[in-house]
């Protein structure tokens, strides 16, 4: 379990990360979202013990993530946003080097290397020079490198940047698989939809502040002040709209056609049920009454509004 408590990083007067709190259970995949300069990399580096927090702590299974504690690093797999591969080094040699650095026993190394290469679909490139791989393969090699020591927590800083759609899909698959293996995974990105399908939780960071954290749907709900409900009737559309506006929690009707419209609703689920019942009791011929899916892109733009200037 990862517990982050009021983690803060200050560069002189500038606070890059301000008192971030959250906790993750094994198997949870956190989508860590924020625009450029929001503080994602800074937070991840502090969790990777590479950067010293100004205040606050982070505990992994009760043990502080301290820069001078080398043992704790065996539990962390860190993939930075930018990285380079050595010249004149082969794929398996690269993995062998890190397996050695992580203290994997000599006899286990060949097996471990084969395993992570298989997991990342790079088996056929084992003898190739790391530099000769395509961008997507290099990304996967870097991920393979994070896995040689079977860490309990993975910190992936924008792993999908620079990948084509197919490679992205494969990467998502792989990350989902890691979650199912029971690892804590943090994946950062500045694109929310990219993370939404496989993240179990999201954290939205802006100007160093964690604006929201929780299950994807909860966050969406908490951040969307009014949800949109779409109604479709056989007839009496205008009348139904007037009826609704006489009720509580309802505002802003928007007609799609004479018998179909959507409106903003701020009530609870119980209120929503009562509202539907009232409409049916009043005899309106309703054929559809549904929540509209929140558009993640819009949501992100809305949350981070103004944070960029």
């Amino acid at each position, binding site marked *: 379990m990862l517990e982050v408590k009021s983690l803060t990083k*200050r*560069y*002189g*007067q500038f606070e890059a990360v301000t008192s971030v709190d959250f906790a993750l259970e094994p198997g949870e995949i956190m989508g860590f979202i924020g625009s450029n300069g929001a503080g994602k990399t800074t937070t991840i580096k502090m969790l*990777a*013990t*590479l950067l*010293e927090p*100004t*205040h606050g*702590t982070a505990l992994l299974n009760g043990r502080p993530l*301290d*820069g*001078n504690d*080398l*043992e704790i*690093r*065996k539990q*962390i797999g*860190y993939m*930075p946003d*930018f*990285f*380079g*591969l*050595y*010249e*004149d*080094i082969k794929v398996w*040699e690269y993995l*062998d*080097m*890190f397996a*050695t*650095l*992580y*203290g994997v026993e*000599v006899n286990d190394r060949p097996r471990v290397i084969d395993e992570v290469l298989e997991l990342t679909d790079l088996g056929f490139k084992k003898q190739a020079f790391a530099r000769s791989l395509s961008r997507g393969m290099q990304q996967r090699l870097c991920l393979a*490198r994070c896995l040689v020591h079977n860490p309990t927590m993975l910190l992936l800083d924008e792993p999908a940047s620079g990948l084509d759609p197919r490679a992205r899909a494969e990467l998502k698959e792989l990350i989902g698989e890691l979650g199912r293996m029971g690892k804590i995974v943090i994946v950062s990105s500045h694109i929310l939809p990219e993370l939404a399908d496989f993240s179990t939780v999201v954290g939205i960071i802006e100007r160093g502040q964690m604006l929201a954290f929780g299950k994807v749907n909860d966050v969406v709900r908490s951040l969307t002040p009014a949800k949109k409900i779409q109604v479709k009737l056989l007839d009496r559309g205008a009348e139904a709209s007037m009826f609704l506006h006489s009720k509580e929690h309802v505002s802003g009707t928007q007609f799609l056609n004479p018998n179909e419209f959507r409106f903003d609703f701020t009530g609870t689920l119980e209120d929503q049920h009562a509202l539907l019942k009232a409409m049916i009791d009043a005899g309106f011929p309703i054929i559809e009454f549904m929540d509209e899916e929140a558009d993640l892109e819009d949501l992100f733009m809305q949350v981070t509004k103004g944070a960029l200037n």
Partner: protein
Amino acid sequence: MHGWLKEQVRIYRGNAASIKEYRIQLRSTKTIWYWGIYLSILVIVAMANYGSIVSSASNSPSSLQSSLQTYYQIVVGFLQGMILLIAPMLGASAIVSEYDLRSIELVFSSPASTKYFLVGKYLAALRQLALLLFLSLPITAVGVTLGGATWQQVIEQYLYLMMHGAIVLAVAMPIAINTQSMVRTISGVVAVLILGGFFAAVASASSMAMMFGGMAGSTTSIPPLVGLVPFLTPFTLGYSTLVGLVPVPNWIFAGIATLAIVKVLLLGAGSALTKVGSRETRSLRVHGLILVALYCFSIYSTIKSIPWPPASQRQGIAMMVVNMPLIPIFFILMFLAASGRAEDRKFLADKLFNWKEILGGRPSGSLGYGMILIAMVAFTNALTLYSVSFIRKLEILMLPAWGLAFGLMILGIGWWVSPGFDQVVGSRRTVVAAVMGLVILSHVGLMFLDIGMNQVVTEFLVLANPFLPWADSLILLVMKITILLIIAGLAYYFGEKKRRLMFNKYYGQPKPIEATT
């Protein structure tokens, strides 16, 4: 203990960082090619010279002999120069390439210790250097077969070449980590070599001169560490130092010193790479003390071996002898003195003085550590001078007091300058500039001496110049020390005021960042 041993074996055998470097070295043979070309040119030049040597000296065997010696020394000199150039390149590229690729983050997110990484890198570079030296052996061997040198000389010479290479390589490591650039590392190493070499050469040359003068040519020994000054080796080969009654060859002392210097430099690199309160920083501080003790020993043995005749300028000379060896310490102090307000706790001036940090390494420990370094050197020197009855009892305290006051001034300036800088690098540069500026400006007075403007005024400029370790009366000495202490006090007072303001502004009063680890 068992765990420690296992860790050591892991570091020196099958070190992943080394193996990676070896693989790269094996696959990219550029260095070897360049070296081969250089050696070929060397051979051609040597052959051409050899021809002219033989033809011009053919009429007398003894002049042929000395010409051959010159030939050998020229070859060795060229090798030496090349090693001094190649070693920093090897050291710098091993580190800087990791920064360029940004792969260093990957290494340091792994549980490999800083020591593991640095030793791995260092040994790989050292191996490459040894290989290059080995390849040059045929050329020097020619010198032996032709009679320009003996095998023993060649072996000892190579030992020294290797030691020089090892030191230069190690000098490059911390500089590379701090600058993260090839060009700046190499120029940094060159600067250190010039400064260090110059200081060591002046020190050893003057001590040799004193000895030769004093002993009227009857000497067979040279101060033990003179061989570590690269370009002096041709003259220092084959000497030994008496320990009790046993003559111990100087290369043994040089070897020990080399190990200590390399260790301290690598620890410096390690300390630069680690966070506040790391083992590396603590170890660096402890080994720094050991190295300074070694330095004290070498000065002690030099001072001891000089027959001190009663001199007219006795106290002035004693003042110089006690305090001049502090110059390298003063340079270290300029680095200790600096801190940065936006840095990690490691470089954040947390407090004026904290004895726990003397070995812990935060800025609050600088005052204590700096004073200890100075006291060690200055008092050793003073006590040694006293033991050869060159100075009086009171002077044992008075002469080192100047060094201590000067050190306090450097630290004070650092304390005053640092709160104005976010990064520690900025404060360091300013401290160096400020101290050097003060010293150099104040020495302008010295120049007037030669021009002979006004004897009284110019002498006063020299005698009363507090930055100059020369005082031929105790009253003058007390005056100088007082001036230095006033500067130090003012700097500390205003610096501390500035620091507190800065600290409140940046980090708030209620939660000053305390060491949690």
